[in-house]
Every structure is written in structure tokens, then in C-alpha cells.
């Protein structure tokens, strides 16, 4: 049985509140998820609190509250999905903490920029916090590329034209096309991660983390 098929059986048992399946899930994922949250910048207490809440939410409630696992599509690994949910909750929590303003602080010299930054942060609270962050950082990075790079990247990576076809269209050499695309991708990576740092300095995402979170959001949620 494949990993995803095997997991979907276990998830079905968890959704029904099977205590053995829930204990098994926690046993298997607690340590890796803790490691992921720590590597992304959470401190141990934050990470342990988040995971305790996450496991509690995996259990369906007596008041007809469904298990959070009802939202899992089964199209990605369960651990990857749980890591995305936990990271989202952590970012959300940190944002709320950073938005908290001590009474009187506004009068004592909070700059307009700080105020606007807080307003922007507040706007994330109404939607999926992490996804809004990923989307906005990625959009900002693409916006810094020229139209040439944005169009060529779409033609090659989304619509699967070959680099040879691009060579024929533009009259460039193959090495120029290849260098251009590589540089554009590197710029997007650099600008995206720098946007993340600018918006949430406490969040440590690698490029691989970033891409995995985007992918999980795309396929992992019902």
C-alpha cells in the first residue's frame, strides 16, 4: 500500500475519534513537527503549545465539532499538511502578539509607518494568515522582475515551451536563454525570502519550506 493510501486509512480512523489511531499519529508526528516549528523560528514553548492545541483539534468534539483532519484532502503527506497548519497558527499567533499595543503607546511616538504596518498585519487575521503571507511575498518578488522575465518564466515553466523554442522566438543563444531563466529564478527566490523577513522577521523559512508550504496549500486542503 502506498504511503498516501495508508495514511488516508489512518486519517479516517482519527476523524472518527479512534484513540489508538490518534495516539499513533501523535507519536509519529510530534517530534518531526516540533523540529519543523523550531527550525522556522518558534521557541520550544511556543512550538509545544501549538502542537498540544493541534492534537486536541484532531479529536472530534462531543459538541459535533469535527476533527481538523476533515480538512485534509489526502493529496499530500499528512505530516506536511500538519506542518502547514501548525506554521499557519504560529504565524497567526505571532502576528496577534505583535499587533498588541500597550495602552498609551500610540501617543508616545509610534510612527505612521508602524501604524500602517500593524493595519496591514491586522488585515491578514481575517484570512488564512500564512497563505496571505506566501502569496504577497511571492507577488512582490515577481513584481520586481521585468515583464520579459515574468512572461518567459510562464512560457517555460507553466506552459512547458522548451528553451529551444524560446531561442527560436527571440533569436537568443541557448546559453543566454538558460542564464536568463536561472537568474530570474534566483532573483525570485532571493526577493521572496527577503520579503518574508521584512514582514515577519521572526519567521525563518528556507526556499524549500516556502515552496512546500505553497504546494501543500494548493493540494492539501479540502
Amino acid at each position, binding site marked *: 500500500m502506498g504511503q498516501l493510501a495508508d495514511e488516508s486509512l489512518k486519517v479516517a480512523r482519527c476523524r472518527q475519534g479512534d484513540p489508538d489511531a490518534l495516539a499513533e499519529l501523535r507519536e509519529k508526528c510530534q517530534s518531526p513537527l516540533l523540529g519543523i516549528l523550531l527550525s522556522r523560528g518558534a521557541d520550544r514553548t511556543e512550538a509545544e503549545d501549538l502542537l498540544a492545541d493541534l492534537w486536541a483539534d484532531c479529536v472530534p468534539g462531543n459538541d459535533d465539532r469535527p476533527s481538523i483532519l476533515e480538512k485534509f484532502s489526502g493529496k499530500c503527506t499528512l505530516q506536511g499538511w500538519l506542518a502547514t497548519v501548525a506554521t499557519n497558527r504560529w504565524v497567526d499567533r505571532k502576528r496577534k502578539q505583535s499587533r498588541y499595543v500597550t495602552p498609551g503607546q500610540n501617543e508616545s511616538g509610534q510612527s505612521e509607518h508602524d501604524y500602517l504596518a500593524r493595519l496591514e498585519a491586522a488585515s491578514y487575521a481575517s484570512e488564512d494568515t500564512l497563505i496571505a503571507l506566501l502569496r504577497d511575498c511571492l507577488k512582490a518578488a515577481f513584481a520586481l522582475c521585468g515583464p520579459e522575465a*515574468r*512572461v518567459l518564466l*510562464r*512560457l517555460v*515553466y507553466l506552459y512547458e*515551451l522548451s528553451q529551444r*523554442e524560446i531561442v527560436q522566438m*527571440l533569436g537568443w543563444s541557448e546559453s543566454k536563454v538558460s542564464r536568463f531563466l536561472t537568474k530570474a529564478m534566483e532573483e525570485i527566490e532571493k526577493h521572496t525570502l527577503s520579503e518574508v523577513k521584512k514582514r515577519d522577521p521572526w519567521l525563518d523559512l528556507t526556499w524549500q519550506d516556502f515552496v512546500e508550504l505553497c504546494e501543500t496549500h*494548493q493540494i492539501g486542503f479540502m
Partner: protein
Amino acid sequence: MAERLQILLKFLDRFDEEVQGRELSEPAEDAKIKLQRFARGTLSEEDQTEVFVLLDRNPEWTAWLAKEVKGLRQPS
């Protein structure tokens, strides 16, 4: 690296589709002619720059251009 970029482009497109309710719109006739010439590699550098801006403003036309280029492939 290529696979990663594909994931990211699809991720972004999903939001754009949600926001714009994007349809597969065909380019206007004059734009079609330019895109067909672009596909065949017969546009000057200056016109290429213009087409890049046009496609950037109308990303849904990129699919049309890609189809046009694929139509030029020799049957294997």
C-alpha cells in the same frame, strides 16, 4: 528548480483566477498577428519588448501564445 517554479506559478495563478474569474480570452486581432509573428521568431527586438509588456498585462494571452508555438512543432 523548474518543478519548484511551476508550483509557485500555479499557486499564484490560483489566486488570480479566484480574484478575476479569469476566462480563456482570445487576444484582439491585431495582438494575435503580433503574437503569431512572435511565435515564429520574426519580430524585431523592439517589437518583442512591446509584446512582453502586452503579455505581462494580459497573462491569459500567454496560454494562447504557447498554443500557437506548440502548433508549430514538427510531428514526431
